[in-house]
């Protein structure tokens, strides 16, 4: 009669946690966008270690640098971005220093990206069966027939209804939710060790989003891959991620295990985000600074200083260090909010 919803929390509690070396170690990644006069710093030194089998959430608003980060990790920053400096260590090597040919072999095979807006990103003149199969043919070197078989199996895994027929469909014939599943299939068919999901569920209906989220986390667990889940919606990370990082203006402002972040948030920006989602007028008065005039960019010191309700003079002068304020809990703030 009634169906029990499988909550992701049960899945997460039983996930194996290893204190091993990180699978992917992003070190001080800086990306600039070349502009008319001065290049604009989009990523200002992002560092993040992802452990094997872990799901890390990365929350940021628009313009924070989420897509830039997702693509720069694979060495393909979106135009007109250029990677200025930084390392991405995977399998003991800095993949950003590898020759393009070597890096190409890793992309899609050991590290892959699930992109948002899939109908714009899929090749409009190729059937989806061929596109998914192409990944297998290129990276695994299998025959065309084998690739088709793998693609069909993948379509079943991502729970596309009527998969045999859909193999011959073109991207424009699919709905948003189905196209998203196709892109997930493409990202996972080679069984990568590290998956980046770049805002993969924005624009989808809530019920479809719920299905896609549980699908992603199930597949990641099943394939024993790590997942970097980038999103604008901090609520999702509370239920699907082991650790959560908060991105603002190209820097990670806070990084903590799930429970710590939501029950003991330390950075004022994180608190602003949580207050925004709580719909409590009292909290919003405390934690936001309304913007009444033209946009202003903070120069010097902490990037959040001009919007922070707790800002002090020091904040505009010195860039705060990324300090550990609790077990596994880091914040980039001169005056982090401390729990009582």
């Amino acid at each position, binding site marked *: *009669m*009634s*169906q*029990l*919803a*499988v*909550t992701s*929390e049960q899945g997460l509690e039983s996930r194996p946690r290893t204190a091993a070396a990180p699978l992917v170690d992003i070190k001080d990644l800086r990306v600039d966008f070349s502009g008319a006069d001065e290049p604009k710093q989009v990523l200002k030194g992002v560092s993040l270690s992802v452990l094997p089998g872990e799901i890390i959430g990365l929350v940021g*608003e628009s313009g924070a640098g989420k897509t830039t980060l997702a693509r720069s990790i694979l060495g393909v920053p979106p135009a007109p971005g250029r990677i200025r400096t930084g390392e991405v260590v995977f399998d003991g090597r800095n993949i950003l220093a590898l020759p393009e040919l070597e890096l190409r072999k890793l992309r899609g095979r050991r590290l892959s990206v699930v992109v948002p807006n899939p109908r714009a990103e899929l090749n409009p003149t190729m059937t989806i069966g061929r596109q998914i199969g192409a990944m297998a043919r290129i990276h695994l070197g299998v025959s065309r027939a084998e690739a088709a078989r793998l693609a069909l199996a993948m379509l079943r895994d991502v729970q596309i*209804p009527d998969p045999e027929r859909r193999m011959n469909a073109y991207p424009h014939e699919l*709905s948003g939710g189905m196209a998203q599943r196709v892109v997930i299939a493409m990202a996972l068919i080679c069984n990568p060790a590290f998956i980046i999901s770049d805002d993969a569920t924005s624009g989808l*209906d*809530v*019920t479809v989003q*719920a*299905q896609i989220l549980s699908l992603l986390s199930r597949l990641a667990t099943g394939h024993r891959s790590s997942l970097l889940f980038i999103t604008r919606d*901090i*609520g*999702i990370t*509370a*239920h699907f991620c082991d650790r959560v990082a908060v991105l603002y203006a190209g820097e990670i402002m806070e990084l903590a295990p*799930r*429970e710590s972040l*939501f*029950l*003991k*948030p330390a950075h004022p920006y994180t*608190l*602003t*985000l*949580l*207050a*925004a*989602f*709580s*719909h*409590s*007028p*009292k*909290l919003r008065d*405390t*934690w*936001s*600074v309304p*913007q*009444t*005039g*033209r*946009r202003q960019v903070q120069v010097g010191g902490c990037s959040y*200083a*001009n919007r922070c*309700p*707790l*800002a*002090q003079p020091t904040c505009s002068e010195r860039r705060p260090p990324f300090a550990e304020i609790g077990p596994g809990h880091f914040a980039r703030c001169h*005056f982090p*909010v*401390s*729990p*009582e």
Partner: protein
Amino acid sequence: MSAILTVENLYKRFPIVGSKQVVQAINNVNLSIQPGETLGLVGESGSGKTTVGRCIIGLLEPSAGTISFNGKPISGQRGSRGDIKGKVQFVFQEPAESLDPRMKIGQSISEPLLPMKLDRATRQSKTLEAIGLVRLDPDLLDAYPSELSAGQQQRVGIARAMVTQPELVVLDEPTSTLDPTARAEIIDLLQRIQAERNTAYLFISHDLSTVRFISHRVAVMYLGMIVEQGAAETVFNRPHHPYASGLLSSVLLPHPHLKIESTVSLKGEIPSPINLPKGCFLASRCPFVIERCRTEMPPMSIVGEGHFVHCFRHEHVAASVPASDTFNVFMREAERILSRNSHDTPLQTQPR
């Protein structure tokens, strides 16, 4: 109190070019809004909620049914919109697209005043009043939309809607493209305006948390039909329709321990609005389905004061989970966590 807006037996069909089929966008919608009240209209894609909004504002003509404002019909042949000029306004989803990029903010805001034949001074003062209402600097009147953030652009959109002092504002997903912080500001703003001006809102959205807090009453739409309608708290705390319950179960609140209890997890995709099934539209996906659901359309059942639902098994649905006000619980939890952690030093309100 008589309703400010009444929608009766509304139908809207869109013919498909080159075929005899039609898209049945709206199928027998009935609703009413009281003065100063917010009715939240929720649904996913294909639910028809945007189409309802456009019929009310007059961008589309209904295929059947009547829309009345303050008792007078404004749709169809008997209706005329001349008397309600300026009394019903619209706020669009994408502020960047609904503002002319080559027009200054001030011009955009005063645009709805043009057909009202006022003199320039009156228009200017009303524009100033509107921009003050949305708490933006008056010197932004000379700026262009590209100089503003998305949140500020949407505030301009609201100022433009409020400049004619409407009695009803239809808002179509006003915050879906905004970041959470901007979203929060807009919601605050809307609530404040409603408190000051007693404006009624038809708030169309798929964001359930926002709808829960801004609406007095809520109507849940699926494939052009309102499947459940009632006071926001009542419907959200204990939904009687499987679809409403399923929608709520997909809401993810930013708290690792709080989840909205539901026994419904909706599988599959939303069917096409072209070939609607004979019985209940949800039958193909519903975990509570019985034979009767596939052949008969469930009639309206009254569940409580102003609370209606279209489902044969609504009692089962309601009984399957205990009532819980998870949204409120979350708000109080958040207040506890976030206020407990505030710093001692005095808070700044405006940076300089």
